[in-house]
């Protein structure tokens, strides 16, 4: 047994954990067919850890689903498989390539893979009849997210209507939906990037190795260090450099930039973030750069 709490004070990480576990149990109780959207990134891993804790010793009572862009880092897929095998949960992969082949989404050569995920995801949710989809979004990430509910209602078309959100009071969540609609659930709403890292450190859980500093061939494009791969080849005037880098977010290889870093442990990563002057999205996500309202627009369309 652990020690008695003399002052009946929960640390803030314990408070966040308790709140998130409450959300998981609430959804599992009230929704017929939930699914956890799992990217293999740090936020979705923390989500999965919280789901594991919420239902232990029973198995997580819903499947995971990943939208496979075909451009995922191998290290991320490896970590994903380790988690899936350890917890014995069902993993559904919704492939963007399949969606293109089946005409669900159209690859016009100009649209990013990240954007094609929207149609692929919405189609998969509809096909499987999922009524609730957990996402790893945090309100500290971006201005549009700051106003989004923990239970975020999506209409028949999977769209978010920011001006018509349900009030959300106390810890009383309203999960009512009509046939064809679904709810996005954000159990990490009140976590910050630093909270996520402190929690990963405290729990000692596995995350993809590319979050830690490592040597990699990179090229500079649009102010970001992109990893050289089948998806990213140097263009005219670009030179390949070998650098010590790490990733602050993990997404589509063609768009996700790395940052120069020597942080090869959780402690060093926390130090680095604590003094960082740029948000994780600003630093490394090409898809949010196009306009200030880029995220809001993608959310309305049904993005994560």
């Amino acid at each position, binding site marked *: 047994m*652990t020690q008695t709490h003399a002052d*009946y004070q929960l640390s*803030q990480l314990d408070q966040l*954990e308790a709140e998130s576990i409450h959300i998981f149990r609430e959804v599992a109780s009230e929704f017929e067919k939930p699914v956890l959207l799992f990217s293999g990134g740090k936020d979705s891993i923390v989500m999965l850890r919280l789901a594991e804790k919420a239902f232990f010793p029973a198995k997580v009572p819903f499947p995971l689903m990943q939208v496979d862009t075909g451009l995922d880092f191998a290290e991320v897929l490896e970590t994903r498989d380790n988690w899936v095998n350890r917890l014995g949960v069902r993993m559904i992969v919704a492939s963007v390539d399949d969606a293109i082949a089946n005409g669900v989404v159209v690859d016009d050569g100009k649209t990013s893979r990240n954007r094609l995920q929207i149609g692929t995801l919405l189609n998969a949710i509809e096909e499987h009849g999922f009524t609730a989809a957990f996402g790893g979004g945090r309100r500290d990430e971006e201005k*549009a997210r700051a106003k989004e509910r923990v239970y975020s209602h999506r209409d028949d078309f999977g769209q978010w209507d*920011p001006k018509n959100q349900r009030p959300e009071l106390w810890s009383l969540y309203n999960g*009512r939906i009509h046939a064809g609609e679904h709810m996005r659930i954000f159990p990490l709403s009140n976590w910050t990037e630093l909270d996520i890292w402190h929690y990963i450190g405290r729990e000692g859980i596995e995350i993809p190795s590319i979050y830690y500093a490592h040597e990699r061939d990179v090229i500079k494009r649009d102010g970001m260090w992109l990893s050289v791969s089948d998806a990213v080849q140097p263009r005219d005037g670009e030179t390949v450099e070998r650098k010590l880098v790490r990733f602050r977010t993990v997404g589509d290889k063609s768009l996700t930039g790395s940052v120069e870093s020597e942080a090869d442990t959780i402690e060093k990563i926390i130090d680095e973030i604590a003094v960082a002057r740029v948000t994780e999205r600003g630093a490394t996500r090409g898809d949010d750069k196009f306009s200030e309202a880029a995220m809001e627009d993608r959310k309305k369309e049904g993005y994560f």
Partner: protein
Amino acid sequence: MPEMATTEPHEGRAPMDMLRFATAGSVDDGKSTLIGRLLLDSKAIFEDQLEAVESTSQSKGYSYTDLALLTDGLRSEREQGITIDVAYRYFATPSRKFIIADTPGHIQYTRNMVTGASTADLGLVLVDARHGLTEQSRRHAVLLSLLRVPHLVLAVNKMDLVDWDEKVYEKIHNEFTQFATKLNVPDLEVIPISALQGDNVVNRSENTPWYHGPTLMHHLEHVHVASDRDLQDVRFPVQYVIRPKSDEYHDYRGYAGQVAGGVLKPGDEVVALPSGLPSRIKKIELFDKEIPEAFPPMSVTVHLEDDIDVSRGDMIARPKNAPKPSQDIDAMICWMTNEPLRPRQKLAIKHTTRTGRAMVKDVQYRLDINTLHRDQEAGELGLNEIGRVQLRTTVPLLCDPYSKNRTTGSFILIDEATGVTVGAGMINSGS
């Protein structure tokens, strides 16, 4: 990074503590500027966010960087220059993490203020020193008090524009203190500040030698919130029954939930409600560990000695300290939709983990939140109105007065046709 002495080893250097506070005030009171300053000074704003705001300010032809743009999240709001929804913001100091529920101050958005205040430990009301207390600041204080936010701060802003005149501060201080005697405000702090120049926000101002209280940040960091929770009356709403149905855990049956009140320990005599069946706590688990006690707001799994029928929506309490199951509910309701609340109306109700239906029996009075006048002739409640209402529910609620417990004393009302949350209720009593 400065060294932090107060952390426990397993938390690393994460702040140990958390404070949720709700801000109220209009753009004119300098609320956005104040929040911008708190975020900037605690480094919660990043360069790319600041750059985006600077470039927007420039393209709009402003001569200064409009910090309000940092907090106006949605494009439709930016276009209209108003805030239309509750936004949550985050910042941390070495000792505490802060969650701000930033609510718009306009009269039509009472429902947002109520939403933001529902989870707040502290309410921050801004007034403009030049204008003194306004109807709006009184209204904000009334709502915070109605939602039983235990700590209240009145920030008297723009003191630089009244030449740091102590008399101006004193007048507002006295007027507000007198007004607060009509409300439930257990803890009040009145702080003279200039959000624009930073006086008494993070750093103590040289302009207010007559002021001996804390700076705003110092107060936010040190206000004691741990004792606001009810540690006396055991309330454990059962949320989910964990039954692994595996060979290894064949007979496992754990009642999972979040502690809403009191301290639960193995060996405690308990009663399951509404059945009234007695038992004892066999053990309490947190993930894969047994723990010696559980208290709010922990999410745990409780095991009972006896194999009694307990399911979601039930509550575990103590035999001599248990809420009486009630179907007749007397509550203050904040109405949140255009179609008014009227007698005989039927709605869905969610209280703790229990869901049922409710019928409106009577609208006893509508509360004018500006004058505190009770209008007994109202007969109905419109959008953003608050009143005292009697409900009859199909299932008994295991409830406490909201003044005693904000979790077991609150409920939401849902329109059964649209599925939308249309009302928020705070229970006076059940019978």
